[in-house]
């Protein structure tokens, strides 16, 4: 670990925090339907969209209608991706002549992008056409991200409103989110990425004759436009197989730094949107602080472990940390930081191969995902995931003092706690359950690339990543088999929607409640005690759930690694 390394980490955190307030202010205006500096241009487009699609922007929806609208929207999205993947051979923008994608792989990919997971069982440049990248994947990068954001906003409205039955209009929210927030940022961002060296072309792959006379086919494509939303929307599905480790997908240290910022910025700003909408920005800062504590702890462990290297490397006289699977332009620190960020948020882009991380260094990304990606988290999903933990923490605090718990003026009662528990328990059910199935099926075991405890970690990581809608991988695992295509798709589906529906139910039930003014007995939710309580509840619930599985994977592997036992 070096001083310049720490400086990069501190600089990163400082810039994220500095962006929280301005972006939170802007997003609050967008979702309150107020005018912004872009309104003169975008307002006519927005109204045109409503007119053509028959949306009455003044009519708000009950939580159930809101949720159904969201689900219907996803059915169509699924059909578009599945359709263009199956038919890509007959459609334009296919200069590399990619053949139709197999049904199970198309199904997996469609669910993957729909659920904001962007798990890749396909290699981008070797499997899909430019049309699939744009029409199938780029568009769903926008819409699944927008969906996450608007659901979080709907839940915030549940907390902020009193005695009403509605939580907003899904169609209005998704349109405004896409037009006013995601698109403008992406246009500027994509052009910046091109300036750094990211290709943006519809031309065919380039055939080069190298200096030594060998043939090299260089895959290019409309990369920058997809990468911008891939990072900003915490989607993470790479244009190329190697994702953000690929020099075209992350050309410079600066592009890397900005990509890391763009993963966190919307998720972090949403805590400020929460604070503004419930009428006290300190409520938002308290949530961000709880996230920050967990984040810094994760960065510390991963950076230390990667900089340290392994006993096997030391035995060969090699120093300088674990560079296997990492790029020289990023080095140890930017690779470690990226790994923690991408799994804290549910991004899943990688700029280094997590499979080759040291055992402890790779355990932190795993833990981040198993905690439910609530450390900033996926755009929107992180905030509603965190608010579920807050509901539990408040409930625990209420039990301790024997009062009905309250949070931002709302009484937290049996219905909310049940829904929060349902959402939180369904995640380990999927990733632990399917891992257990996979390790006793010989055909599933055959997909492991590494022997010993590392092979187990690969499988656990895959199901954790899918359930958490992250999409990063211990990529050695051969996921493109019938078994993994279907089981991972089911994990992604359950992990997304079984969290969303309970969260929306909570939103609906909270919105109907009266607002209780704070009294002398109200537990203050803006101070250090509250932050500590939330962090404690997260770690205790998480620890009890998945610690045994970690003991079988990364923990035992670290011990083996220290003793220089190889498999």
């Amino acid at each position, binding site marked *: 670990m070096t001083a310049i390394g720490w400086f990069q980490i501190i600089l990163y955190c400082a810039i994220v925090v500095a962006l929280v307030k301005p972006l939170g202010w802007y997003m609050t205006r967008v979702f309150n339907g107020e005018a912004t500096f872009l309104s003169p241009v975008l307002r006519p487009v927005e109204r045109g969209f409503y007119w053509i699609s028959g949306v009455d922007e003044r009519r708000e929806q009950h939580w159930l209608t809101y949720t159904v609208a969201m689900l219907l929207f996803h059915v169509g999205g699924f059909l578009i991706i599945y359709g263009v993947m199956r038919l890509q051979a007959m459609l334009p923008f296919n200069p590399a002549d990619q053949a139709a994608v197999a049904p199970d792989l198309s199904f997996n990919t469609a669910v993957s992008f729909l659920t904001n997971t962007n798990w890749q069982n396909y290699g981008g440049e070797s499997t899909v056409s430019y049309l699939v990248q744009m029409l199938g994947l780029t568009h769903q990068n926008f819409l699944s991200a927008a969906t996450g954001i608007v659901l979080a906003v709907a839940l915030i409205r549940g907390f902020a409103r009193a005695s009403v039955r509605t939580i907003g209009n899904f169609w209005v929210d998704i349109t405004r989110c896409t037009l006013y927030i995601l698109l403008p940022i992406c246009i500027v961002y994509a052009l910046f990425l091109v300036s750094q060296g990211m290709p943006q072309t519809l031309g065919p792959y380039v055939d080069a004759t190298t200096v030594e006379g060998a043939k090299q*086919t260089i895959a290019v494509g409309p990369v920058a436009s997809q990468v911008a939303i891939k990072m900003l929307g915490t989607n993470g599905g790479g244009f*190329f197989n190697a994702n953000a480790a690929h020099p075209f997908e992350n050309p410079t240290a600066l592009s890397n730094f900005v990509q890391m910022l763009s993963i966190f910025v919307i998720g972090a700003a949403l805590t400020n949107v929460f604070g503004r909408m419930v009428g006290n920005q300190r409520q938002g800062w308290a949530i961000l602080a709880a996230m920050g504590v967990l984040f810094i702890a994760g960065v510390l462990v991963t950076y230390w472990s990667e900089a340290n290297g392994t006993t096997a490397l030391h035995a060969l006289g*090699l120093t300088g940390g674990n560079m296997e699977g990492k790029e020289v332009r990023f080095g140890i620190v930017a690779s470690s930081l990226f790994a923690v960020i991408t799994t804290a948020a549910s991004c899943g882009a990688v700029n280094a191969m997590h499979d080759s991380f040291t055992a402890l260094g790779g355990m932190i990304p795993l833990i981040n995902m198993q905690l439910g990606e609530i450390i900033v988290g996926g755009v929107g999903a992180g905030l509603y995931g965190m608010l579920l933990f807050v509901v539990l923490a408040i409930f625990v605090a209420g039990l301790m003092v024997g009062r009905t718990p309250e949070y931002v003026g709302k009484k937290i009662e049996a219905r909310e706690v049940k829904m929060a528990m349902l959402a939180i328990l369904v995640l380990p059910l999927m990733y632990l359950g399917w891992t257990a199935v996979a390790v006793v099926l010989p055909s599933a075991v055959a997909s492991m690339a590494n022997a010993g405890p590392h092979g187990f970690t690969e499988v656990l990581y895959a199901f954790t990543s899918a359930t958490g809608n992250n999409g990063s991988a211990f990529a050695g695992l051969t996921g493109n088999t019938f078994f993994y295509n279907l089981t991972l798709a089911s994990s992604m589906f359950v992990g997304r929607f079984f969290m969303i529906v309970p969260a929306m139910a909570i939103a609906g039930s909270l919105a109907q409640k009266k607002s209780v003014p704070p009294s002398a007995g109200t537990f203050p939710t803006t101070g250090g005690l509250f932050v500590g309580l939330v962090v404690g509840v997260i770690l205790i619930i998480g620890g009890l759930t998945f610690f045994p599985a970690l003991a079988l994977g990364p923990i035992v592997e670290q011990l083996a690694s220290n003793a220089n036992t190889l498999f």
Partner: protein
Amino acid sequence: MLREIRPAIVLLLLLTAVTGLAYPLAITAIAGVIFPTQAQGSLIEKDGKVIGSALIGQEFKEDKYFHGRPSATLAPDPNDSSKTVSAPYNAANSGGSNLGPTSKALNDRIKEDVEKLKAENPSQPVPIDLVTTSGSGLDPDISPEAALFQVPRVAKARNLPELQVRQLVEANTKGRFAGVLGEPRVNVLALNLALDGASK
């Protein structure tokens, strides 16, 4: 609920057209005008032929060139399309080794490379990046230490004084962005092209 069906179809199609077609095509058009070189992939041409991309590593095996990092990229086996074979720096199929820290296969491979490099230059410690594969398998860079490590071999193969080769390495070393971000590095292709230029 029924009145939600029309927006579910129409609004989806509108937003798909905007984000899936209009946006990427507009970015392609604008980028092609203001950043034409980068948008095409930062290609390097020599005598009218493309010899590679400034951002994509390529394989160097001859002694007279600086070598990049080992690459774990694969290609389909020409004899059996269901299998893959090693194909270093395959820029149409990026990827890493994905071998973990306790992998015997990885450790054996590193050990073999370390021994080869020690035989080549016993006077300096072996730099870690010269014996580990990158995440993409296309890493265009090596660390300045890894470049300096190879100076004696390259100088000998080219009959150039070591000092001159070392100066070329130093001239091609790029520092951190703004002195802070990333790591110092040497682009192998740029260095080798400079070397070819100097030897003429």
